[in-house]
Every structure is written in structure tokens, then in C-alpha cells.
């Protein structure tokens, strides 16, 4: 027993005095976050049916602690669409839980649940105070999840990332490489542990970018395999005579390109994403494309105006195709640094083709208050 106590004491002493712990803690635990409250008026055309809705679109609470000079821990709790488990509204996510290590500007490491960089917006899509939009460009708008398969366009999660930048004269070459789960996460308790990847494949991805003065451009890519075996019992497998073994591991490639600039009072950003599935079947096509472009003008330090166009092209051959086009414009006005008023108008046009052609449009008018605390 005495030996055991001594062993514990020596171990505790060794841990306390090890170099990693002897560096003094840089900061206390920091808690901060933001939320965005919105009022939306949606009018379907031509029926003129309309709905008005207030909601807490997004609330994020961060916990951060600098463990040493180089190590930082970060937690991000996210609440969407006026979350209430009692009333069965919205969603609550553990969105991020990672620790980062900064060796130099060229080499930084992030371990744990994180949102990986992909094009301009993926990493900051839920950081509403950084965006002038209330409704975000289609592939990034979580409230469109029921209309568009948003997680097919962009990688939602990664677990390991190496990133940084390399100075090159006045420019900087940005790099980020990440690994995560493939998208085949089990959510059925009857099939075993939920929340874990049900296959032996990984998501690999990254972004290479160039930053020069107020211009930024980059290319992004991810590679993973999808398990489409749930289609085995559907008419698709019979109709297409698709072998089950082939459906279990369909390679998917996302390719993206992004560009942004700030020149005087003008700013702009644009990106394109192409998602391809290597399914080896001429009659089965679920490839997708996404584009958005925004041009903005800062009237003053407080007032920003913008116009923007977004589009998705989704194939669901042989069932249907879906094209969505959104034309929109908006403004943001900073009452002060942590309180911003936003307004946005969007005309959404959805067209389905193939077996049951269908088109419908609707208008969105939204107002929002974005608060950082």
C-alpha cells in the first residue's frame, strides 16, 4: 500500500514538473460567443401564401483556454433554430472540441472535432458575425438541409489538421491538410454504436491558397467513400442492376475554387464546388455543382451593402434533377463592434425536372440582429 502511495506521489510530481506542465498557464478559461435573432417573411409565388417567423437562428457558446504558450483548447456548443428539446424545435450540436499546437507560422496542428477549411466559407459558415448574410449561400445554409444535401457539398467535420502559411516575398502561401471520418456515421442504435464511422475509410482533404495584399485565392479538395448500400433494397438497385458490393464503397471527390478581394471600398468573394461520384454506371448520376459570387461596397465604417448570386445544380438520375438559383441583396449596419443589424432580400427559384417537372419561386425578406458577447 505504501509503495502504491509513493508511486502515485512520484507520478504526480513527475507530471507537475514535466516541461509541458511547467510552462505557466497563459490565460484563464475564457467564455464567449454570439447569437443571431431573425425575423423572416417568406412568400410563395404565385400562390402568395406567406409566413412570418421570429427565431434564434444561431447561438454558439465557446470555451477557450491557452494551456501553454503553444497549446490551446477550444470547445464550440451550437444551438440552431430556437433550439428546445421540450418543444422539439431546432438542434443542439457539439460542433467543435479541439486542441491546437502552434510550432511556427508554417506548422500548426489541430487535433479533435473541428470544421475543416474548404474554399472561402466552410470554416466560418456558422460564425454569423463574420458574414453579412442572414441566409447564407446555399451549400452553407443549415436551415436548407431539408431542400439541399448540404453536407454533400462541403466537408462538415475533421479530426486532424496540419495548417499554416509560408511567406513568399509579399505574398503568403496558405496550406491546410485534414483527415476525418468518411460520411458513413451510424445513427441507428440497432446497428451498433451511434456516432461512429461504420466503414474502414477516411475523409482526406485540404486547401492550398495564395494571399497577396488584399487578394486571396485557393483550391480545395476532399476524397472519401460513400456507403450507398441502403439503396440495395430500393427499386434503383433492381432497375439499374447495380451490384451491392459496388454500392458499398462509392468514391466521392469534391473540388473547389475560391477567390476574394478588398479594393478600396469594394470587396467581393466567389467560389465554385463540384462534387463527383465515381459510381461507374452511365444511368446513375448524383453529381452536384455549387456557385456563389458576392460584390459588396462599404459606404462607411458601419454600413455595408452587397448583391449576391448563388446556384446549385443537383443530379438525382434517373429520378430527377434539381436546379436552384438565388438572387439576393442586403445590408449590414454596425451599431457598435459587437452589435450588427442585418437585412436581406432573396428571390429563390427551384426547378425540378425529369419524371415530375416542377417549378416554384419564393421571396424571402429577413431582418436580423447579430450579437457578439
Amino acid at each position, binding site marked *: 500500500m505504501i509503495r502504491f502511495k509513493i508511486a502515485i506521489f512520484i507520478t504526480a510530481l513527475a507530471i507537475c514538473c514535466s516541461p509541458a506542465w511547467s510552462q505557466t498557464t497563459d490565460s484563464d478559461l475564457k467564455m464567449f460567443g454570439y447569437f443571431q435573432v431573425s425575423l423572416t417573411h417568406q412568400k410563395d409565388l404565385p400562390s402568395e401564401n406567406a409566413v412570418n417567423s421570429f427565431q434564434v437562428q444561431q447561438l454558439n457558446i465557446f470555451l477557450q483556454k491557452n494551456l501553454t504558450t503553444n497549446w490551446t483548447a477550444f470547445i464550440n456548443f451550437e444551438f440552431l433554430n430556437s433550439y428546445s428539446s421540450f418543444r422539439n424545435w431546432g438542434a443542439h450540436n457539439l460542433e467543435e472540441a479541439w486542441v491546437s499546437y502552434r510550432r511556427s*507560422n508554417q506548422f500548426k496542428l489541430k487535433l479533435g472535432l473541428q470544421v475543416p477549411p474548404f474554399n472561402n466559407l466552410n470554416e466560418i459558415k456558422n460564425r454569423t458575425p*463574420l458574414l453579412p448574410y442572414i441566409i447564407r449561400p446555399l451549400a452553407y445554409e443549415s436551415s436548407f438541409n431539408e431542400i439541399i444535401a448540404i453536407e454533400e457539398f462541403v466537408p462538415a467535420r475533421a479530426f486532424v489538421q496540419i495548417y499554416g*502559411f509560408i511567406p513568399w516575398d509579399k505574398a503568403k502561401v496558405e496550406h491546410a491538410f485534414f483527415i476525418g471520418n468518411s460520411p458513413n456515421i451510424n445513427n441507428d442504435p440497432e446497428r451498433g454504436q451511434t456516432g461512429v464511422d461504420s466503414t474502414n475509410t477516411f475523409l482526406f482533404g485540404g486547401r492550398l491558397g495564395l494571399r497577396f495584399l488584399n487578394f486571396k485565392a485557393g483550391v480545395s479538395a476532399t476524397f472519401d467513400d460513400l456507403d450507398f448500400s441502403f439503396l440495395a433494397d430500393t427499386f434503383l438497385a433492381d432497375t439499374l442492376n447495380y451490384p451491392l458490393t459496388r454500392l458499398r464503397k462509392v468514391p466521392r471527390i469534391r473540388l473547389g475554387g475560391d477567390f476574394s478581394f478588398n479594393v478600396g471600398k469594394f470587396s467581393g468573394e466567389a467560389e465554385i464546388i463540384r462534387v463527383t461520384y465515381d459510381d461507374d454506371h452511365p444511368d446513375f448520376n448524383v453529381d452536384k455543382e455549387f456557385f456563389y459570387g458576392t460584390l459588396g461596397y462599404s459606404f462607411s465604417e458601419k454600413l455595408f451593402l452587397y448583391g449576391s448570386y448563388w446556384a446549385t445544380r443537383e443530379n438525382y438520375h434517373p429520378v430527377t434533377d434539381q436546379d436552384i438559383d438565388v438572387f439576393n441583396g442586403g445590408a449590414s449596419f454596425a451599431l457598435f463592434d459587437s452589435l450588427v443589424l442585418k437585412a436581406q432580400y432573396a428571390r429563390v427559384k427551384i426547378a425540378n425536372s425529369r419524371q415530375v417537372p416542377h417549378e416554384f419561386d419564393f421571396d424571402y425578406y429577413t431582418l436580423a440582429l447579430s450579437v457578439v458577447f
Partner: protein
Amino acid sequence: MKILIILLLLIIAGATDAFSQVAVIAHRAVQADTLTQSQLLDYFTGDIKSWADKTPVVVLDLKGQSEIKDSFYKRLGITSSRIKSIWLKKLLLGEGDAPEALKSEDDVVKRVASTPGAIGYVSRSKVNSEVKILRIVEKEKL
């Protein structure tokens, strides 16, 4: 008499210069003696977080809007609102905290003098011997 007038004019011209120039100042122990505009931008946007000797960089800013602040950032080729959004992005991504903003230029000089690794900017006329000057930039006409 002529010499006296010339001397007086020179003194006035010098004083005017001191008021129309922004000095980038640092703690005396900082090893760098000068910084390029590009390096300054890296420090003030948090891209570079430590000096060559690994001492952490402590950036100090001025609170609110002022002529010297707008002029300094304009000289760096960036607006103060863009600087704010860069730091907000770093904060929300867990990459760093915005610089502490102090009320007056005198406060900046005092804090730079007493904080190892500190860097800030003030009117040249405010600089004293307790800090070192890394760069002088002419005030931009706004």
C-alpha cells in the same frame, strides 16, 4: 536676428513634423531595430505572433476612432474596420485575441515601456526614451 528667425522656423518645422508623423514603438528589449510595412501588417493582423527571439508579440491599439489610428492603418494599406474584422475572425476561430485597445497615446507609451514584447503606435511627439522607435510613418491626409 536672421539666424534667430531661421532657427525659430527650423524648430517650428521640426515640431510640425513630430506632430504629423506616427511612430511605431516597441519595448526597449525587442531585438528588431526596424520593420518593413509588410512586417508591420503581419504583427498588427496577428499573422506573426512572436519576435525573432521567440518573445510573444503584444500588440497595443488605440480605442475608438481617431485621426492617428485611421492614418496609421491607411499607411499599412488597410482600413481600421477591416482590421477589426480580421481580429474578430481570429477570435471566433480560436486563433487569437484582438489587441488590447488603450484610451490615449500616453497610455500606449507607458504600456509599451513596461511590457516585454509590446508594440504600438503613437504620434512621434509622444515618444520618450523609455521605448524604441521601429519605424516612422508620415500621417496620411484623411
